[in-house]
């Protein structure tokens, strides 16, 4: 699939734009703050039903307006060309309506796979540098694209988790730090369901990372000749030196994650085994849960860690190394999407070149060039000229409008 036509009305800084695209590489040039990221965001929205940088819909609606629209024709060419009309209407109060070919889609999961996209964003650095929730979010967003049941499973897990946390909080009030038999019985009931749904979340994330791993190593070792790179899933029960303030996870640093072979093979082929381990760890940590008044074990506290020459990239990597690692994660995402969804994805490259040196710029170009429809933003053309790229069209973003540039 690729994006053929895009119309935006009252979207961010745009009052009205109408654009046509070919299945090639489209360069979007414009000064800081002119709306390049906004344009890519709208394409991403078209693909996933959500923004890659905000959870509040209201932010997207142009200031002073009540509604905004994204309308697009996406499709494929060839002997039997396909076209779909996707219409998204956003209103204040976070109400969104999505129509595909004039029929309303109630569930977002119904439509996410029509136009698969991979976005490379400056914010991706957060995946490497920030707390575990950013990394979980990376895995979760990708799983939502390739596994239609994942979103609901995770939602179910979160509901049970909220109930369990509530129970733990109330238990404390009535019985001090030791829990009484009655509450423990209720807790066991919640725990068994927590484990049931949580295990499938863990398993899916773990297996995804397992698939990513060899490709990630390849990409990294290609970008940095002579280094060794690796990536590991970290179960909540293997996270060491629990930060006191783990509710604000970004401040917690745990540099020595213990990577135990026993637990890395936990998921493997034996689904039962994972449920057993999870349940055991949950029960073992019950006193700690009571003390912190929150559930400390479960996929909501899982993480993954990237090692570069054996050192945790999150703490010891340079800015450029971290940037490249985030790009490699996205390249893995692209490979996984290609494999799982039998549709060509669209690539959105938002200002990714600026931090890279010329060698690595060239490598990235090589990795993505001439494969799929690709949108690239930049503030100027200067370094792009040195890269071996062909653009199907160039657009200039200026004064809340978009005009084609002559090639």
């Amino acid at each position, binding site marked *: 699939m690729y994006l053929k036509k895009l119309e935006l009305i009252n979207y961010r800084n745009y009052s009205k734009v109408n654009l046509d695209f070919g299945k090639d590489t489209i360069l979007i040039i414009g000064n800081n703050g002119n709306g390049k990221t906004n344009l890519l965001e709208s394409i991403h929205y078209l693909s996933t039903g959500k923004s890659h940088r905000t959870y509040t819909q209201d932010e997207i609606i142009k200031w002073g307006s009540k509604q905004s629209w994204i309308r697009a024709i996406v499709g494929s060419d060839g002997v039997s060309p396909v076209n779909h009309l996707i219409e998204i209407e956003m209103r204040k109060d976070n109400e969104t309506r999505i129509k595909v070919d004039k029929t309303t889609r109630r569930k977002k999961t119904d439509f996410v796979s029509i136009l698969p996209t991979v976005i490379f964003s400056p914010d991706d650095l957060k995946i490497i540098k920030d707390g575990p929730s950013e990394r979980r979010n990376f895995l979760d967003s990708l799983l939502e694209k390739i596994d*239609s*049941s994942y979103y*609901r*499973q995770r939602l*179910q897990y979160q*509901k*049970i988790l*909220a*109930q*369990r946390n*509530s*129970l733990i909080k*109330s238990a404390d009030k009535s019985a001090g730090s030791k829990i009484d038999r*009655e*509450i423990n*019985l*209720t807790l*066991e*009931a*919640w725990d*068994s*369901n927590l484990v049931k749904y949580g295990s499938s979340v863990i398993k899916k994330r773990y297996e995804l990372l397992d698939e990513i791993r060899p490709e990630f190593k390849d990409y990294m070792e290609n970008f940095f000749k002579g280094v060794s790179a690796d990536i590991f899933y970290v179960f909540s029960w293997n996270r060491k030196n629990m930060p006191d303030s783990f509710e604000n996870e970004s401040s917690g640093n745990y540099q020595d994650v213990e990577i135990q072979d026993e637990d890395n093979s936990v998921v493997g082929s034996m689904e039962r085994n994972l449920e057993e381990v999870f349940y055991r760890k949950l029960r073992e940590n019950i006193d700690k849960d009571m003390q912190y008044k929150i559930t400390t074990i479960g996929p909501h506290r899982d993480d993954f860690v990237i090692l570069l020459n054996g050192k945790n990239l999150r703490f010891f990597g340079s800015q450029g190394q971290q940037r490249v690692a985030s790009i490699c994660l996205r390249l893995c995402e692209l490979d996984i999407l290609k494999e799982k969804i039998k549709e060509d994805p669209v690539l959105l490259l938002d200002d990714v070149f600026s931090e890279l040196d010329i060698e690595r710029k060239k490598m990235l170009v090589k990795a993505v060039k001439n494969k799929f429809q690709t949108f690239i933003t930049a503030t100027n053309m200067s370094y792009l000229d040195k890269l071996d790229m062909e653009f199907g069209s160039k657009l200039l973003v200026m004064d809340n409008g978009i005009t084609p540039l002559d090639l």
Partner: protein
Amino acid sequence: MALYIKSIENLINEFKKLPGIGPKSARRIAYFLLKLPDDDILKLSRSIVEMKEKVKFCSQCYGLSEEDVCYICRDESRDRKKICIVEEAGDVAIIEKTGEYRGLYHVLGGLLSPIENIGPSEIRIPMLLSRVKKNDVDEIIIALNPTVEGESTTVYLKKILQPLGIKITRLASGLPVGGNLEYADEITIGRAISERREI
């Protein structure tokens, strides 16, 4: 300025509180009632009051009844060794309509939900236990909704009833009859597969 008549607006506001009724239907119903003959209006308002006066909870199963003990609990021809556990009194009517079940019921009146401060004693589980201990019960059928709360309540019931040596079953949750596999959600299909049985 729109026409505003206080007594009409009052009634509309009352209707809006009812389940499934939005402002538009509330208004429609109010204007419809306005046109009804006085007799019909009296009948309607009387039946509301009468229902509220007469209907109470059955002292055994907590289903709805006009007597102290409901007609199901009084019915000697029913299998008194089976108890079906449901969330709300309305669920009894739904299962009764199938005509497939000939045992007794126990209405919990809610589900475990720590967030709403609902624990076992808030949902008539103590009453269930004493009922089971006093009477000769050999099977408990759990018919709770497959929500997060329903499932945890089911697990809880299993935990406290199993030591009493009673057979515990739950409703099979499968695919809707006449439904198309393609349109069932993944969790339903997943459960239908994991709880499949030999034919």
